[in-house]
């Protein structure tokens, strides 16, 4: 029997290739999106790890410091008094080409003698490269062959750099031959110099960026660590390399989790598609299954048959999806890395790294989702008694009877989802809550459909006569099929509404924030404004010159540094604010006046919302910062809104910063003009002055605002792409559902044609019916989408990033959602409607 069951199953699907294709396509797209996001995230993380490894090498620990770096003497003291284990000094900074200010290179200063145990990439130093010249020749640097080729350089050529306002010349002493491709990629755009050469280029003689240590594991390391700590100045931190790179990659954890959650949404839509297909296949074969049961096939055999079909769809879809996912990943990785570069840290991903484990996991996920989705239809097919399976009316009647119970279960799922959203700690639990709310709404759909159709019946009958009531009743009469299709469409549209409202609310909050934060008239900053890049700072002379520009009444200065802490780098902004700037800050503090008085007179700081969220800080709490005079407590005088970084930042007044950190650099300036001053004149003067400083750009208020919004839109581009993909999968689902539903009604439509309905009337009837389904989906999707938006804005965003956003609902988004639901349903109904309208009534009456 089972062999024949398999054959019957195979033939059924061969006769319904469109349905089979849609099921496979749904899983394939779902798996592709999940895999692509995983691969893109993984590739970015791996690229970061590789570049860290290539630069940090095998160091077990690193000694780092805040702005200004470490005094060189520390290295000598550590080698002489601290440990006998290998130690290597490193100088590292981003520099730009004099001829092309937007092209940045990384200058890495190393001690080739101390280097050997740390970085195998530079083993070539002893072979074919004149070590003496490397150590002694001023401006001597090494680059990889690929970088040389890109820059059009050969051995002996010189290269002009702009460093801290001055032009510096370096000479290519030799080419690094790195055989390992990954390391070669990690060393792309890196200039390697002797440490003293690098110090001379950077104009920071006697300072180190960090010291790498290679301490053995075990108790002897603890002794060494204790000794080393006693030798360090107050501002220095001793960190394990793993903790340092872990903290950096940890910064993106919430970002990556959000992407993964969105990608899983696409898979959920894919699973819905399989559910749809399995359910339809069962419904369509209801009579056949009944006959099989009547002939002696057991419920278990029928169950296995339906589940086996889903497993095959899942496997084929997952395999295709894996190939598609790898292709998609190459596109998505650019979006992912661009966001990481904009918001977190600099990383260059040159290729997708395909981890077999990730691919296998995606395949397993696809098959599991398919089998899980087919579970209920299979159980339904197996449990029905042979007598009942012969009756289609019974199937639909029981679907209608079950609707209220299913709705009650949906209400229960809603409640469970709400409960899962209550605990603040777990982001994963919040996503589980979202999933449960979505499933709850799917369970509510059949009842909502019946109720809506009940309300619409009389008006449609009055307006369109018997055909009108037929269209309405057709939806509720085929509830076992329409319910699923409506649920799939409603979910997809709700996700569109939810994500759309969230992005819209976010954007409006950012626009408002920019409105009051960017109160100055002219802004000057390094080429790359985003927080992840750190170029050499500008000197104090520039500040003086800018304050004397025509029309300038006041000046803000900003110095952005990163302080090393156990939890990763802490972003500190030292500000000197013009009086007018103070009123622009949206501060959360019991007394604004007291907050500003503390800012001006005490050891106090302001922290951004995300920082306060991450570090669980409130106003008046104390925050300890590693200054060059040792760890010092600062009172949190206020919490300010800041959408510039989800890691958060700490704001300190410049005069206090100058007292605690030896650093006279600046990263950005903003100018306030006197009332009536000519903005264009000041802009022209500022641009003239900026032309003398490499990597400094001048932007007007509007330009900076536009630039900031451009970065915002870029950040959400990937979210938009994922939303589109999830919507696409759902559309496939609706298309499959409607096609199957309409095609199986061909006998009924044949009767209508025989009774005298013209093809265009049949077409209109069918399109009206799918339009009604779209209407229900749209009506359901609006409240659900708003609930989703609220969860994302008030719960997910806050728990992921600590931002508070003002939830704003644009009527346009709601109208778009309604149009989308109606449009998608009608569009999906067009093909089957056209096909049926074209079918000759005699064929339709003949049946399958």
């Amino acid at each position, binding site marked *: 029997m089972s062999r024949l069951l398999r054959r019957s199953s195979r033939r059924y699907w061969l006769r319904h290739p469109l349905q089979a294709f849609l099921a496979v396509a749904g899983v394939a797209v779902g798996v592709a999106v999940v895999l692509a996001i995983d691969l893109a995230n993984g590739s970015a993380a791996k690229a970061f790890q590789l570049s860290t490894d290539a630069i940090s090498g095998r160091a077990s620990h690193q000694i780092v410091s805040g702005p200004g770096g470490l005094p060189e003497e520390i290295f000598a003291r550590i080698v002489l008094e601290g440990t006998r284990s290998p130690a290597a000094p490193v100088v590292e900074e981003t520099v730009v080409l004099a001829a092309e200010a937007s092209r940045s290179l990384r200058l890495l200063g190393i001690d080739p003698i101390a280097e050997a145990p740390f970085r195998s990439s530079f083993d070539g130093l002893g072979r074919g490269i004149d070590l003496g010249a490397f150590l002694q020749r001023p401006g001597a640097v090494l680059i990889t062959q690929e970088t040389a080729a890109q820059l059009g350089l050969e051995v002996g050529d010189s290269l002009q750099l702009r460093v801290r306002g001055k032009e510096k010349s370096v000479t290519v002493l030799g080419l690094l031959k790195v055989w390992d491709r990954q390391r070669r990629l990690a060393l792309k755009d890196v200039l390697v110099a002797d440490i003293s050469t690098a110090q001379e280029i950077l104009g920071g003689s006697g300072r180190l960026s960090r010291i790498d240590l290679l301490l053995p594991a075990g108790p002897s390391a603890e002794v060494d660590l204790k000794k080393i700590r006693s030798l360090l100045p107050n501002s220095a931190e001793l960190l394990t390399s793993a903790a340092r790179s872990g903290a950096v990659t940890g910064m993106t954890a919430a970002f990556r989790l959000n992407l993964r959650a969105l990608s899983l949404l696409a898979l959920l839509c894919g699973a819905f598609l399989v559910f749809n297909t399995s359910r339809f296949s069962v419904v369509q074969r209801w009579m056949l299954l009944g006959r099989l049961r009547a002939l002696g096939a057991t419920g278990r055999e029928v169950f296995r048959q339906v589940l086996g079909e889903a497993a095959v769809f899942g496997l084929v879809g997952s395999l295709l999806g894996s190939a598609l996912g790898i292709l998609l990943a190459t596109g998505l990785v650019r979006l992912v890395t661009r966001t990481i570069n904009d918001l977190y840290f600099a990383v260059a991903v040159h290729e997708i790294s395909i981890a077999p484990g990730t691919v296998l996991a995606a395949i397993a996920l696809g098959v599991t989702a398919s089998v899980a989705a087919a579970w209920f239809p299979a159980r339904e097919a197996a449990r029905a008694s042979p007598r009942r399976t012969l009756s289609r009316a019974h199937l639909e009647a029981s679907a209608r009877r079950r609707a209220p119970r299913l709705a009650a279960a949906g209400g229960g799922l809603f409640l469970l989802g709400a409960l899962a959203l209550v605990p603040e700690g777990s982001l994963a639990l919040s996503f589980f809550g979202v999933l449960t709310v979505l499933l709850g709404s799917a369970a509510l759909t059949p009842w909502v459909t019946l109720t809506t159709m009940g309300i619409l019946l009389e008006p449609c009958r009055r307006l369109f006569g018997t055909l009108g009531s*037929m269209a309405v009743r057709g939806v509720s009469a085929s509830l076992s099929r329409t319910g699923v299709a409506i649920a799939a469409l409603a979910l997809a549209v709700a996700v569109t509404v939810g994500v759309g409202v969230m992005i819209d609310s976010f954007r409006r909050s950012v626009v408002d924030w920019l409105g009051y934060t960017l109160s100055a008239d002219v802004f000057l900053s390094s080429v790359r404004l985003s927080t992840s890049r750190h170029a050499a700072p500008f000197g104090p002379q520039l500040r003086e010159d800018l304050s004397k520009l025509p029309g300038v009444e006041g000046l803000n200065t900003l110095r952005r540094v990163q302080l090393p802490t156990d939890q990763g780098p802490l972003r500190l902004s030292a500000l000197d604010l013009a009086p007018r700037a103070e009123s622009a800050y949206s501060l959360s503090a019991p007394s604004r006046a007291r907050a500003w008085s503390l800012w001006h007179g005490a050891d106090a700081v302001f922290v951004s919302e995300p920082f306060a969220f991450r570090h669980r800080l409130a106003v008046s709490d104390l925050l300890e910062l590693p200054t060059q005079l040792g760890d010092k407590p600062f009172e949190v005088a206020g919490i300010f809104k800041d959408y510039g970084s989800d890691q958060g930042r700490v704001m300190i007044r410049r005069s206090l910063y100058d007292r605690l950190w030896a650093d006279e650099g600046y990263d950005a300036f903003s100018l306030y003009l006197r009332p009536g001053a000519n903005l264009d004149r000041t802009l022209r003067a500022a641009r003239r002055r900026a032309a003398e400083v490499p990597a400094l750009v001048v932007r007007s208020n509007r330009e900076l605002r536009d630039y900031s919004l451009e970065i915002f839109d870029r950040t959400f581009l990937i979210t938009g792409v994922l939303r589109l993909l999830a919507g696409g999968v759902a559309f496939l689902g609706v298309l499959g559902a409607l096609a199957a539903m309409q095609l199986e009604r061909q006998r*009924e439509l044949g*009767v209508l044609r025989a009774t005298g309905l013209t093809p265009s009337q049949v077409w209109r009837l069918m399109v009206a019916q799918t339009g009604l389904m779209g209407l229900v989906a749209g009506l359901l999707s609006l409240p659900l989408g708003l609930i989703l938006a609220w969860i994302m804005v008030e719960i997910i965003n806050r728990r992921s990033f600590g931002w508070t956003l003002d939830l704003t609902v644009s009527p346009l988004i709601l109208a778009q959602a309604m149009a989308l639901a109606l449009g998608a349903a009608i569009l999906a109904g067009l093909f089957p409607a056209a096909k049926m309208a074209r079918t000759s009534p005699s064929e339709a009456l003949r049946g399958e």
Partner: protein
Amino acid sequence: MVADTADTAPAIRLHRLEKSYREGDRRRIIFSGAQTVVEAGEFAVLLGKSGSGKSTLLNLLAGMDSPDQGTVEVLGKNLPKLSEEERTLFRRHHVGFVFQFFNLLPTLTVGENLLLPLELTDRNGAAAEERARELLSAVALEDRWQSFPEHLSGGEQQRVAVARALVHDPELVLADEPTGNLDQETSQEVLELLDRMTRSAGKTLVMVTHGREVVGLADRVLTIEDGKLVEAAPAR
């Protein structure tokens, strides 16, 4: 205007009818030069083996299928010469259909199933409902106006189907094995009903059937043999 039909013309005139179907690589001939004439008001029965082409002939008469060649003249109109739209409108106004599997529309109540052909021929309102109720009463199901088809027995469904086929007062009624799914007693009831209602209204009835019991009621008996329509002597 397709609704205009000649009163004096025969109800049906088939002339040199050719029809075949493609089955894989082969072509299966159903009709080859078939011809006959059925006068208005006649009850013609079409007998034949399964697959001989009986249902195909009904489809041709209803304008739901087209011949390869030849004339299919129904109520004075040569259907193959009409467009799809015109054939549909012709069927809407002049033909009633009774199917083997009842084929009532499951999403409409019994009353609505009867109202549909009237509505399609622009007869609405109280007069239409009165006509539909009259027909339902004629098939003795007046109390089932609000019921959905799934709640009716097979015999009841077929009686509704008979009423639906006649409700818009068509000149030609086509019945495709209307008793094929009914027990003997119910079959007899339905046949008598169909005969009575069509005769009393002067309709032409063409019925495809397997059962010879109907032969006694018919005016003409036709069979399909080797692609031709052959006249058999009626039992009546």
